[in-house]
């Protein structure tokens, strides 16, 4: 069966100030997506101010030197478009999805929010109070609690161990001055990408981008700070957290891989075979859900969270308390098996066909295409990556998967976290 590889036309420009602009025209619908990405987030925030990076991201649309929060919202919502700003671990993103005719307005707003956010005192106070409430609300979500506790162990010694939201102790410390300093230091054109995908004319938009962003001064002194790299834990660990709930929420795993790891494609394939595939085809959902009826939600993956830094290799299951021992034993068994013996030819063929055949679905929407442009730039993939992905994944063998499993999965160093009536 031939493989449908996405036909992606894209171009890359770099303004004199270092801003990288990525454009891809797609005229299927009269719509467009803009994604501005600053390569900074919680990763660069010290422990005592945990939450500063994500607050800075969320506050970008809460006021600029020229516009109030309501003026920004009114401008976007009058078009019916959607605007979202968020601060993540490695990046801070402003994204807008708009009808095609509203792109110029969208770009003007994005430029204003990126370059001149004012972090008004009252909006900072409001966001901090909302954030504190959200941190409390996490206590009502046992799966999130389990995930947080797992990260605490797996990413020990790095800012990655913290929830993006920060902590109840650190969030109130964040001041307007901290936010402004974070912005001054990291939000510079030579640390920013701007991706636009959809129904527009690249020549026209190129001129608009130059007008809006060309005057943004480069910071010649900018250097990304060093961040401690997470280390693979050397021994197994267990943490049980008691909550009165119907289910136990279980995470089992350890440190994962970075996006730039040479084994990335082999680990994607391993994921499809072990625990991350459509329906119940992969081993862990097939055995624990389809055969044993232990859970509705059960999965396992190592490549999904791969970024600049390693993500996590994590199996998850939510099950009744009476099934806990069987569920943990089942996960351990499957993790042990994948690291001990090569998968079958049929498994590898199925997983390869899935990854290469479904790649086309990652390029359906403008937002997806804009996101791909950002990844291509961030990880040096190149715009021909869809073709290369299909070719490279298509060559992987059972031996490649076993080698990757042995290198990246350690059944004797698993961290177990259980939240529920334990």
């Amino acid at each position, binding site marked *: *069966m031939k*493989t*449908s590889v996405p036909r992606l036309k894209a171009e890359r420009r770099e303004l004199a100030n270092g801003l990288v602009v990525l454009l891809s025209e797609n005229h*299927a619908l*009269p*719509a467009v997506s803009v994604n501005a990405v600053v390569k900074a987030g919680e990763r660069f925030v010290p422990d005592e101010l945990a939450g500063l990076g994500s607050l800075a991201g969320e506050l970008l649309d809460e006021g600029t030197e020229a516009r109030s929060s*309501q003026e920004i*919202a*009114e401008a*976007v*919502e*009058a*078009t*019916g*478009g*959607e605007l979202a700003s968020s601060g993540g671990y490695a990046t801070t993103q402003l994204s807008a*999805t*708009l*009808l095609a005719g509203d792109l110029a307005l969208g770009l003007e707003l994005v430029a204003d929010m990126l370059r001149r956010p004012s972090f008004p005192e009252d909006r900072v106070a*409001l966001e901090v*109070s*909302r954030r504190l*409430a*959200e941190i*409390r*609300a996490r*206590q*009502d*979500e046992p799966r999130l609690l389990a995930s947080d506790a797992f990260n605490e162990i797996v990413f020990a010694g790095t800012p990655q161990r913290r929830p993006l939201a920060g902590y109840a102790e650190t969030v109130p410390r964040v001041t307007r001055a901290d936010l402004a300093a974070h912005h001054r230091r990291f939000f510079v054109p030579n640390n920013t990408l701007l991706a636009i995908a959809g129904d527009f004319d690249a020549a026209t938009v190129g001129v608009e981008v130059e007008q809006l962003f060309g005057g943004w001064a480069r910071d010649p002194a900018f250097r990304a700070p060093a961040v401690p790299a997470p280390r693979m834990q050397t021994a197994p660990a267990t943490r049980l957290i008691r909550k*009165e*709930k*119907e*289910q136990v929420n279980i995470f089992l795993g350890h440190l994962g891989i970075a996006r730039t790891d040479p084994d990335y494609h082999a680990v994607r394939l391993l994921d499809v075979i072990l625990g991350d*595939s*459509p*329906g*119940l*085809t992969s081993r862990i959902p097939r055995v624990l*859900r*389809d*055969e*044993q*009826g232990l*859970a*509705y*939600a059960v999965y396992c993956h190592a490549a999904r969270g791969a970024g600049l830094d390693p993500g996590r290799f994590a199996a998850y299951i*939510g*099950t*009744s308390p009476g099934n806990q021992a069987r569920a943990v034993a089942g996960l351990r068994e499957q993790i042990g098996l994948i690291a001990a013996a090569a998968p079958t030819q049929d498994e590898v*063929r199925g*997983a390869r*066909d*899935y990854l*290469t*055949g*479904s790649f*086309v679905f990652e390029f*359906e*929407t*403008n937002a997806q295409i804009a996101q791909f442009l950002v990844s291509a730039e961030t990880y040096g993939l190149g715009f021909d990556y869809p073709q290369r992905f299909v070719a490279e994944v298509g060559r992987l063998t059972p031996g490649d998967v076993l080698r990757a499993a042995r290198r990246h999965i350690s059944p004797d160093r698993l961290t177990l976290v259980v939240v529920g009536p334990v």
Partner: protein
Amino acid sequence: MFDITEGVERTRLANGLTVLTRERHDRPIVTSIIWYRVGSRNEEAGQTGKSHFLEHMLFKGTDRYGKGEIDLITLERGGANNAFTDTDFTAYYFNFAADRWPVALEIEASRMAHNQFAPEEFASEKEVVEEELRIGLDGPWDALDQAVWAAAFQQHPYHHPVIGWLEDLERATREEMEAYYRRWYHPRNATLVIAGDFDTRDALARVGELFGPIPAGPAPRPVASREPGQSGERRLILKRPTEMERLQVAYRAPEVGHPDSPPLQVLATLLGTGKTSRLYRRLEERDQSVTHHSVDYQDRIDPTLFVIRAEVKPGCAVGEVERAVAEEIDRLRQGPVADEELRRAKQLIKARFVLGHEQVADQAIALGMYETIHRYEHLAGLFARIDGVGADEVRRAAAAYLVEDHCTVGQLTHA
């Protein structure tokens, strides 16, 4: 402007199967999705949750496909499949690249007439469905939502949750499940939607070959139950160990296609969508009493609910939030909305519809859902109906529907 119904063709087979096709060659993708007009609305007391449980059983094997084979075929062809159940329908979809999609038709034809119900598969899947239900019980919203719908509907089956009551699920039998399947899964009770990069003539020929021989099936039994009018507010309190109190306010609201439905959609938007919305400005900015709120009014076959939800900040009282919501509703009943606010709400509805239907699968879902609960042509007039809503109509809809006597209020409070 984008018209999702443009070029859609409806074909009806002799056995009653409705087929909608939307051929477009802009992306090499085909979605096929089959809709059965059966959901929790069709379930009797003591038998709740069957429609959803049945959806799970349709992945457990047919006469042609062994257990797991449907998923395996999907995997090997690089596709995606899933299914969903709601009050009014159950739907199954496949997304495939355009060069390999017709296998979806073969699978659906086999599932429609020849699903297998092996006793051991039924028993094991019952455990899975019960675990799915427990996820909901452990979350903060499902219990409150279920209690509010159960109080608002006392006779009509919107009373019970789509996933069913745990006690009903526990006592469900394989025989009842198979009988339910035989009653509802027929060409006459189904709509097949095919959207994307395919040839309509070829596809219809294949549909005829595969589905044509399946008997039409019995006439679907209508849902006779009608919920009587509500005369007086209903209130309920759920106590839970929780960090945050939560509020749900639900008003009785009309069914899909009702002339009062468009002004209520506009009301839902200007109350709840975006940072310019009234509840955002009131609850999140002025009072600073909630972390999130939402307003939800979804088209359904029968009269339904207009639902407002809010998560209350620690230190704020759920009763205060309820009073603030009531004041905002009262303002809408008393005076007309400004032109600019009305224009913005209409633009939000229209633009979000366009932006929300970029994917071929989303287009197929919209067409199939409306064909199942009403008729797909309803979507062609959506923008015109929204544009036609005047400020006075909005005020009258608020005065007629968002009233205390037709309201059910649920509060989730600390145990």
